[in-house]
Structure formats: C-alpha cells, structure tokens
C-alpha cells in the first residue's frame, strides 16, 4: 500500500481545443493553447521549481522560483504566468536560472524557522523540497536580522512575530512559517469563494490574516480546508497531522455526509485515520471539500459508539448486551412470531440512505423475499419522494438531468428551496465560482440565504415568497414566459407533446396565474416575478437547482412538475449548462431509491405490479414476490397505532428525530412489539427499540454511494469495523437466521446481482468502477461510459409532458392562535439530525438550534436576541433561544433541527405531499412567546431518553 499519487501541474488546465507545439529542454510537447509553460513542462515530465503555484488556483507569479528562459526572448519570465506559444524553445535549467533560484530560496529561508525535524510538515513540505531542488547549501544573510520567526530579538519584543492561532478545532495557523505565497488566500477566494483570508501589511510586514486580523474561528472562515490543502509549508496544518504524523498509505473513498458525494483520499497510518483530503480527480468535487467531509469524521471513533448487540424485553428495561448469534436468533423468532400472530403484512423495514447501495439492496431484498411483503421505505420518503413522482410524470424518470460540471456552462440559475452554501457546500462553491464569472442568479426562498448577497455574489432577483406558495410563483413565471412569447417553440415542437403543451399554455396564461394576481398571497412583488421570468427565458443556458424547500410541502410533487414545465418551456433540457437538478440530502439517498427502497418499486424504479420485473427477481431469488405496494413510513406508523403493524427493522435512520409530528412517531413505535434499530449510536429511535444492532461507518466497509448526479462512487474500507461487522454482513446474518440462503462474501457480489437484475446498472461492476473511477447511471450497452446528461435526444418517456399545476393553499394556515409560519433548514457545520456532527468539534460553530425571528415580530412579543422562547403549533410545543434577524420576513420564523433537545419535529404537523406523503416540514403555523426554559414535553422526553439508554452493568448510559 502507498499514498494515492497526485501530480500538481502548477496551473489549471486550459480548455482550448486549439493545440500548440513547443520545445522544453529539447523535448517537443503539444498542449492546448493557453496552457502555462509550467504546466506544459510538468506534462512533459519536467518539474520546474515553484512555491506560489498550485493547480487548484490561477497562476500568481509571486515566488520568482519558477523562472525559465525562452530562446529569442529577453529576461527570465515566470513559467506559471507565461503561456505556451507555437515553436518556442524553453530552457528550465540554465546557470542564470540556477543562480536566481538559489538567491530567492536563500531569502525565504533567512526568515524561516529551521526546526524541520520536529515540524509537522516534515516529509510533506514544499519549501523543504525546493531548498533541496535548487541546491541551497548556505544562507549568507544569517538568521539574526528582522524576522517573523522569534518572539524576541536580542531580548527585545519582536513586533513582527505572531503566536500560533489554534482557535480552529481542526487546523493551526503558524505565522512564523508563512512564506506569503498567497496560495491560501487564493484558495479561499477562487475555490471556496468565501473571501475570509487576505494579506495584511506590505513588503516584509505582509502576513496572512483571517478577516480583519481576527483569529480563524472568529473570522468568516467556513473551515472548508482549501487553504490548508493549498499551504506549501506547515503554516496551515491539520491538528491531526501535528498529533499523529504524516500518513503512509491512502485510499480513495466517498464522503458519507451530503448528496454531493465528494471523493476523498483517506490518508492512513496503519488503521489510524490521519486526515481526509479531497481528491483532485473526484468528478463531483474536483478537489474541493467542506468542513464536514474534510474534518468531521471524529464520530467514527467516538466513545458513544455502541459496539455490542443488545436486547431488552420492554423499552422501559435497561439494555442487556448479548452475542450476535443471540441477537439474530431473537429478531428472527420475534418477526416470525409476529407474522404468525398478526399476518404477513404486520412487519416491515426501513433502508438507510446513509448506507451503501449494496446494504440497501440487501435490506429491501430481506423484506421482499424474507418478510414476504413490500413494506419497505427509506428516508427519501421525507425528502425527495416528490422529485421521483414529479419528474417521473414529466420526463419518464426521477433522475436529475445533469452532472455537477454542468454548472460551469450555465448562464442563468434558479435556486429554489435550497441553500447550497450550507446544505451542499461544495456544489455551492462551484456555483459561486460560475456566478463570479458572470452567470446570473434568481433565488426563490422565503429567507435571505447567503447566495442572495455575499462577497462578490449578488442575486439578480430574490423572490421572498411566503412558505407554501411555490406552485403559485412557479406557475406565474410560466405565465410570463408564455404570455410574453418567450417560450422556446422549436424545442417544444420537437421534444414535447404539442397538444399537452397547448393545453398547459392556455392554463398558465389565465389571468389568475399572472404575477399581479398572486402577489397578495405570495408576498412577491409582481415586477420581480416578471423580471425573473424574462431573465431566465432569455439569458442563455438556464438551470434550475432545488432542494427540500420544494419537496417538503403538501404540493411538493406539483412544484416539481412546475419546475419540469419551466425547463421544457424554455428549452433547457438535454445539454450541458441546463436542466432540472434536485440537490439530494443524504449521501446515498439517490442510491437507496435506485435500489428499490420504495414500497411500490423494485430496484430500477419498476412497479411491483409489473409481472415481467417481478419474474426477474423471483427467478434469481427463488421466491414469489407480492404484487401489492407496501406501506410507506407514515402509513406504517398509522398502521402501528391501529394495531396491524407490529415489527420493524430500521437500518441507519432516526425516524423519531427526523420525521414530523414526533408524538405520533413515538406512539407508533411504542405500539410495536419488536423494533430493531441498527445504528452507530443509541439514536432517538432506539429509545423505543427492543433490539439494537451496532452499525459500522463508511470507513469500515466496501461498497458504493450514488450521489445527486447519479454518480456511482466507490466506498473503500480503510479500517476494521469497530463493531466487528460491516452493515451488509449484519443484514446477511439476519436473513440467514430467518431461513434465507444468502452467501455473499464481498459487496462486489451484491453489485453483480444488482447489475444482473437492473437494466440501468447493467455494466456496473467493481472492476468497471476501478477502471472508470466512477460512472453515472444509466450505464449499459447504450451508454457504456454512463450518462452525465439525461434526455439528450429525447425524453426517457418519449415526449416531454406538460402538466397543469394549480396552486392549492395548504391546510396548514395561520390564524389568531398561530399567526406565524415556521420553516426549517440546515446549517453548514451540522448535518441533519446531528448524530455524527454533534459528536465532533463542529459544535464549536453551532452548539444549539436557534429560532430566527424578524425584529418586528420579536418586538411585538417582547423577545430579545438570545432569549428563550416557547414555540407552539397545534401539534406541540418546545423551547429554544431566539436569534433576531431580518433574514426572515415578518411573519416567518426559521430554525434548524440538528439537536435532539430542540425537538423541532414536535412542532411540525402530519400534513404531507398529496402524491407521496412526503411530510410538509416547511410550513407550520406557530406562535412564539417568551419562556423561562424547557417545555414539559422536553423535560419528559429527556427523562425517558435517559432511562431508555441505560445498559445493564454500565454506570452511565451513552450520550
């Protein structure tokens, strides 16, 4: 094993198709026009010395180390800033260059500590490498003069010296080691787009400064790690490297946080993870990362992890640790007993959108083939199920239409109901990069997200609509496009059903759908809707990105259809830079849907009533499959309360915290006789579990995740599972205990079964992924290299379908008792229910959920910033602290849901999307009032949770 090699070409690749041939050190090389001489040299295998250049950022030309000579030209230009030209002859090593370089290095080293042996970057320091490369043997100036290295000079205080900044939990900033190459500053600007870093002072006094000479954690820094990655010295260094030392081997794997699915190198020393570094060749992230994937992996070794299976008779009993065999036997006999007593349909399961495709496939297989019913669902129910339904209706497949690279070709972007700089940070950075290049942005969101206005980014239009009115606004945009003659008729005639279009066009053209008519209830000024529609229809390549602010509504599916309509009417489908792009939440929510986690669909989105599909699986599995759709999660809970659903196997999902109307979820779980939870931690759902099966992390298993762009990425095991088994092994043992003859020895065999049964995965195998890096499904005979862009020559369903989208107000309305609307969202540093991120240092940034309240609403109620407030809806009430801000409009309050003590879902209601039962998280009528502390429910809940986490023989329960 060794470190995964990565070549730094010094400057980014040129996109030109015109090729240029030149000679470097006697070698002829042909490269695209616009390539730097530095990059061309590296491609020819010649490494020009460099310090301030790295290929993640544009050339800067400050270090004066990469100089070269060109025959017939004067001087010694920098190779990083000098582009190639046809026929030139370049020399990278001449006596003149050697002298200059040595002189430059001598100056650098004269103001640098000489503690290489005890320095954290020892073995991974470009300054050290360059000193060696130029043959530096002596520093004639000595080390005594003006410097940034020592706190005191000859007993006097050295004002230029600055202490190490250790405020960030994950990396340190040591100004004494800084060579002011600006790589970190440029990475922050160009890659991350936060502009948190700058160079303060001038000349010899120059230093890197977070914000206005602040420490890192108090500055705007979002801790994405790009600066640390860019730093050529030990100035910015991971604390883990300082503590452990340099890694000795690495493996490429996929982040287990959000749906962007970034590729990382897990850098290891033995079985100890030293650091996670974004992989440059990762096709989703292109070498970038966010604070979660880069740094927040500490949960995997957290003391709260449960490593032994546990059982208990009643949920009020303490847990009892048992052997794996005992746990499997217990679950099998309980599930069979329940089915014997209450019928075959009385049990079911939930697959995990956190686990691998292979693991998800096995759980649904266990349910369909072993339980003999289709009662299987997944957390996509509560996030993107409306995407599946809406896009399926309009285009014929639920798939997002683009890859992430597509954004580089976009001219105008609509972001609706998504907050990518917090929720999908690496995509957010890629989007911001495109916006800085001149693309236009339209934000449709009740809240003023960071995209609306932040350094060097400003939305052309922000439509701050009232929560719940998405359909009205989207239909009004279509109204403007149709009535002002901006529709792309050529595209529609060629690609869509013309009579359906005519019907739809007549519908949206009705006066009641005009921006002026909807202004009163959406709260969006009509001229903004008109302006946004004109911009989107006329600016060029138009792309729509959306998130859960679209789907988690009673009209979620209708909004998805409206988005599809808008993309079709403007002809924005089937090429780079356009499309309908659902930003998916969980790392593998796309995959869990693909793998047949829905109660009505077998793998590959084929309905259970389809005989031909069932036959494929029946043959392979040797069982008869039910042709009836099964229960969805909310239906399971209803049936449990009714007494007809008694047992559930939940892999890696915390429905008690994440699903709406907590009290109803709790009642459903409490009514069951055998709740089996498989997870890393005793999560909230486990409070109601009878069996706990310890889970494993993504670092501990092989498999694949499929990200929001349908990209199938490998997950590679870099350490032994702390609990002993990967999750797929646990499911297999459970299936065996229930009498199924499964015998997988490696997840690759499960993928082979998926490929054999699912046409869109036909060519996928671990060998193929090894060769290709990753592929986007469909990947089959027709598209052997996968499908970055969908619907290129025609829609999957044939002709694109325009569907009428009538706005219907949700039943959840404000009134005298509950006059405000609550909507929810995410924050950068925490992830979903927080089970992982709360167990990392990320709590530094977000230790509690706060309620954002507009100053006007706060003043009316006598609430000040930081006060405890009681938040009540018709479902329940909770308390949390207020944050007064005009990011939210008057009448709207907002909170995150990362902490279980907040109990945000006690407030949310059981209303749901009409088509899919996706809960309406994003709209709840509430009232707020000053409060002294936790609500009765919170106190009761805490006590119940504490009691239910007791483990016999252990003093203190986990968490």
């Amino acid at each position, binding site marked *: 094993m060794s470190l995964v090699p990565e070549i730094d070409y010094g400057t980014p690749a040129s996109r030109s198709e015109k090729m240029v041939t030149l000679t470097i050190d006697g070698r002829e090389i042909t490269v695209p026009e616009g390539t730097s001489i530095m990059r061309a040299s590296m491609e020819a295998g010649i490494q020009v010395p460099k310090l301030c250049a790295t290929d993640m950022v544009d050339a800067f030309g400050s270090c004066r180390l990469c100089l070269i000579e060109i025959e017939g030209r004067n001087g010694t230009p920098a190779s990083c800033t000098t582009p190639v030209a046809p026929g030139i002859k370049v020399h990278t090593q001449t006596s003149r260059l050697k002298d200059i370089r040595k002189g430059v290095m001598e100056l650098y080293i004269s103001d640098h500590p000489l503690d290489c042996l005890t320095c954290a970057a020892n073995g991974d320091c470009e300054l050290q490498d360059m000193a060696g490369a130029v043959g530096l043997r002596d520093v004639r100036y000595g080390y005594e003069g003006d410097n940034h290295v020592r706190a005191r000079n000859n007993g006097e205080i050295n004002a230029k010296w600055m202490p190490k900044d250790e405020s960030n939990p994950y990396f340190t900033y040591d100004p004494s080691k800084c060579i002011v190459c600006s790589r970190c500053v440029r990475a922050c600007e160009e890659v991350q787009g936060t502009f948190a870093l700058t160079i303060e002072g001038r000349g010899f006094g120059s230093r890197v400064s977070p914000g206005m000479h602040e420490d890192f954690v108090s500055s705007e820094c979002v801790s994405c790690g790009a600066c640390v990655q860019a730093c050529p010295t030990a100035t910015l260094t991971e604390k883990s490297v300082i503590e452990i030392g340099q890694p000795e081997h690495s493996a490429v794997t996929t982040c287990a946080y959000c749906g962007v699915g970034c590729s990382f190198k897990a850098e290891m020393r033995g079985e100890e993870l030293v650091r996670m570094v974004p992989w440059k060749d990762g096709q989703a992230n292109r070498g970038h990362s966010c604070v979660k994937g880069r740094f927040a992996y500490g949960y995997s070794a957290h003391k709260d992890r449960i490593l032994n299976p546990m059982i208990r008779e009643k949920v009020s009993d303490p847990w009892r640790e048992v052997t794996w065999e005992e746990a499997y036997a217990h679950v099998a006999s309980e599930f069979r007993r329940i089915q014997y007593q209450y019928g*075959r349909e009385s049990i079911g399961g939930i697959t995990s959108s956190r686990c691998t495709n292979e693991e998800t496939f096995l759980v649904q297989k266990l349910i369909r083939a072993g339980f003999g019913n289709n009662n299987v669902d997944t957390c996509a129910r509560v996030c993107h199920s409306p995407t599946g339904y809406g896009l399926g209706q309009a285009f014929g497949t639920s798939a997002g239409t683009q890859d992430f690279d597509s954004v580089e070709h976009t001219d105008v972007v609509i972001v609706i109901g998504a907050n990518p700089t917090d929720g999908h940070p690496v995509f957010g950075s890629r989007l911001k990069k495109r916006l800085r290049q001149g693309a236009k942005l339209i934000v449709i969101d009740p809240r003023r997200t960071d995209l609306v206005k932040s350094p060097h980014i400003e939305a052309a239009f922000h439509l701050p609509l009232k929560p719940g009115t998405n359909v009205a606004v989207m239909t009004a945009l279509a109204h403007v496009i149709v009535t002002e003659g901006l529709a792309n008729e050529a595209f529609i005639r060629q690609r869509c059903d013309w009579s359906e279009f005519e019907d739809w066009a007549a519908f949206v053209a009705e006066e009641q759908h005009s921006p002026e008519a909807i202004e009163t209830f959406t709260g969006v000024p009509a001229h903004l809707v008109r302006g946004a529609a004109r911009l989107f229809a006329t600016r060029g390549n138009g792309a729509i990105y959306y998130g859960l602010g679209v789907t988690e509504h*009673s009209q979620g599916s209708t909004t998805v259809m409206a988005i599809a309509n808008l993309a079709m009417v403007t002809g924005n489908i089937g090429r780079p830079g356009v499309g309908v792009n659902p930003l998916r939440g969980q790392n593998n929510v796309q995959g869990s849907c693909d793998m047949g986690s829905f109660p009505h669909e077998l793998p590959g989105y084929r309905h259970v009533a389809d005989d031909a599909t069932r036959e494929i699986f029946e043959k392979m599995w040797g069982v008869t499959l039910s042709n009836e*759709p099964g229960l969805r999660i909310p239906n399971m809970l209803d049936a449990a309360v009714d007494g007809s659903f008694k047992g559930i196997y939940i892999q890696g999902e915390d429905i008690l915290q994440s699903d709406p109307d907590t009290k109803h979820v709790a009642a459903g779980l409490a009514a069951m006789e055998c709740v089996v939870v498989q997870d890393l931690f005793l999560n909230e759902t486990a409070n109601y579990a009878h069996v706990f099966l310890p889970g494993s992390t993504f670092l501990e298993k092989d498999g694949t995740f499929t990200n929001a762009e349908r990209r199938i990425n490998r997950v590679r095991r870099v350490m032994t599972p702390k609990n002993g088994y990967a999750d797929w092994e646990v499911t297999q043992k459970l299936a065996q205990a229930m009498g199924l003859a499964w015998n997988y020895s490696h997840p690759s065999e499960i993928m082979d079964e998926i490929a054999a049964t699912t046409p869109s995965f036909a060519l996928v195998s671990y060998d193929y992924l090894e060769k290709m890096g990753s592929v986007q499904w469909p990947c089959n005979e027709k598209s052997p290299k996968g499908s970055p862009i969908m619907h290129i020559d025609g829609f999957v369903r044939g002709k694109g379908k325009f569907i009428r989208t009538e706005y219907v107000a949700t*039943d959840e309305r404000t009134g005298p008792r509950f006059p405000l609307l609550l909507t929810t969202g995410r924050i950068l540093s925490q992830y979903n229910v927080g089970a992982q991120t709360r167990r990392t240092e990320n709590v530094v940034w977000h230790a509690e959920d706060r309620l954002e309240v507009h100053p006007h609403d706060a003043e009316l109620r006598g609430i000040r910033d930081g006060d405890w407030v009681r938040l009540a809806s018709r479902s329940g009430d909770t308390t949390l602290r207020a944050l007064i801000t005009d990011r939210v409009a008057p009448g709207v309050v907002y909170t995150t849901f990362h902490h279980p003590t907040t109990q945000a879902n006690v407030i949310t209601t059981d209303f*749901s999307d*009409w088509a899919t039962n996706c809960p309406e998280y994003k709209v709840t009528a509430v009232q707020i009032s000053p409060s002294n502390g936790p609500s009765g429910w919170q106190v009761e809940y805490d006590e119940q949770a504490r009691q239910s986490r007791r483990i016999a023989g252990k003093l203190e329960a986990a968490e």
Partner: protein
Amino acid sequence: MSHDGTQQKLVRMANQIATFFHSQPEAERVQGVATHINKFWESRMRRQFFEMIEDGGEGFDPLVLEAAAHIRKPAPPTPPPAGA
C-alpha cells in the same frame, strides 16, 4: 391516534389526490385518482378505504367516490409465510 384518526387521514389523503386531478383535463381525472391509489396505497389502506365507501363514503370528494369503481379491491390479508 385511534382507528378513526387513521380513517380521517385516509379521507384527507384521498381528497388531496382528488384536488390535484380536479385541475387536470377532464378526461384524465377519474382515472388519474384511481391509478394513483392503485399504485401507491397498500392493501390494508385500500381495505379501510372500501369499508368507508361502503359506509356511505362520508367526507370524500365526489371525484374520489367516482374513482372508487376503478380502484383495485384488495385480496383478503395473506397468511404468514410458509415455515413460520
């Protein structure tokens, strides 16, 4: 929540589906509601649905009542799997 609560929910869900199809072209409405329920409602939900329809169908949108004729009657509950 009681059995009544679940019934109320089924009425609401069915009516929500009907509300969507009300705005669709007339020819697609009845079949749209029926197909949706056939595709996504588990058998015990449809069983409860038909019980309520037989009890007079109170609270249901007229479009749901019309669609009921096209909704698949669920088979009686299946016995436990062999060997249990």
